[in-house]
């Protein structure tokens, strides 16, 4: 399988804790999983996801607290609304649904963190690198 980059946003209060615990438990996941800690999954602006794809991510994973557990009460609900609205838009641009996911990992779920990122990474790796057309002008005479 091809080596890919999986841009993973983890929230400060739950999912980062989950990733931390996964480390403590020595759970292995591929080096292509790149973590970015944000204060809340609700902070992940869809612009960041599109920029991620544009700048070389082959998949984007957003992890937040389980519904009802958000440190800010409703940040993960906001994230869910945005991400689910973004999904069909990505499909229209030809980005496969397996390349983008929102999921929940709590601070005590190190094992679940490993499972979620490994599953997602394998799916993205099966699809291979994302080839986005860039906006540079290509002359064609056909």
């Amino acid at each position, binding site marked *: 399988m091809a080596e890919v980059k999986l841009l993973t946003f983890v929230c400060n209060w739950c999912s980062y804790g989950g990733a931390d615990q996964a480390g403590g438990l020595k759970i292995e996941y591929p080096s292509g999983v790149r973590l970015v800690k944000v204060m809340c999954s609700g902070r992940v*602006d*869809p*612009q960041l*996801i*599109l*920029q991620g*794809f*544009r700048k070389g991510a082959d998949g984007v994973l957003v992890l937040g607290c389980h*519904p009802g557990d958000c440190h800010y009460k409703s940040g993960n*609900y*906001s994230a*869910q*609304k*945005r991400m*689910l*609205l*973004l*999904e*069909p*838009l*990505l*499909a*229209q*641009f*030809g*980005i*496969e*649904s397996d390349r983008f996911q929102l999921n929940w990992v709590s601070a005590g779920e190190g094992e679940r963190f490993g499972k979620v990122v490994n599953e997602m990474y394998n799916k993205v790796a099966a699809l291979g690198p994302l*080839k*986005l*057309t*860039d*906006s*540079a*002008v*290509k*002359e*064609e*005479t*056909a």
Partner: protein
Amino acid sequence: MSDNKPKVAFYWCASCGGCEEAVVDLNEGLLDVAAAVDIVLWPVALDFKYSDVEALRDGDIAVAFVNGAIRTDEQAHIARLLRRKAGLIVAFGSCAHTGGIPGLANLTTKEKIFETSYLKSPTVDNPEKTIPVTKTTVDGVDATLPGFWTQVHTLDQLIDVDYYLPGCPPMPNSIVDAVTAILEGKLPPKGAVIGSKKALCDTCTRTKPVKPTLHERFYLPHEIDVDPEVCFLEQGVICCGPATRGGCGEKCIQGNMPCTGCYGTLDGVTDQGAKLVSAIAAYIDGDSAIEVKKAVATILDPAGTFYRYGVPASQLFKKEAMEVTK
């Protein structure tokens, strides 16, 4: 023709002609403009040849207003020619600014466009399955057409652009402002978009509660009786006002139609569609994924709704040629 008047060129690329209409909409104002400048190219209205422009010295044209997106060899050739000959290039209207309606073609492929336009349309009778090619020989004579690119570009992806005049089409008052600024030499910093610095919502007069009303579904404007006094989003009709530059005079809103986003993004925003996703998502009712998905499904064409005028200017730029498997 006098030599001391500033020379001005108008050109159209992939556009509908609406921007030309907008110039004509200046009414008597157009006479003032015509008196103050010397028009050297305006294919839609006046008979100048490309060779006339080629004969000018480089930088001889004071300002060239270019509307339309870039998709063919001819459009690229003239845009580059004008860049050489003109001191200032103004991207005129949504298509030149962000890709506009022609830019939606980036959501499909060139092959599919040709198939629909030349083979499958119900009104097409084309038994020989002829599609455009750049060169063909008819009765021993070579006939040529400009090449049709696989993707649509904004003007600034092809050439350096000095100013942007957004809108589909730009409002006459914006055009007058821009022309006056150029004639009087009161120019904004290079790369500026001539329009408001605030979002459309900022000047919209419709009533809107502090806390948004959440919706289980969205409506198209014809599906409900739209109250002309109340915010469209409050009523469940998608309006691009929250993430669209103001300065257009809210003509659509006054006509009881929601904003479709033609003035593009505000300064500092990298992606119009992404910002609209954020704004519209705030109006969705539902804490479970199932409820949210139900509401999302009532937006029939998210990319076409959130990037109606901006697919080529978006981060994603173009759909890949592959088929989407759902």
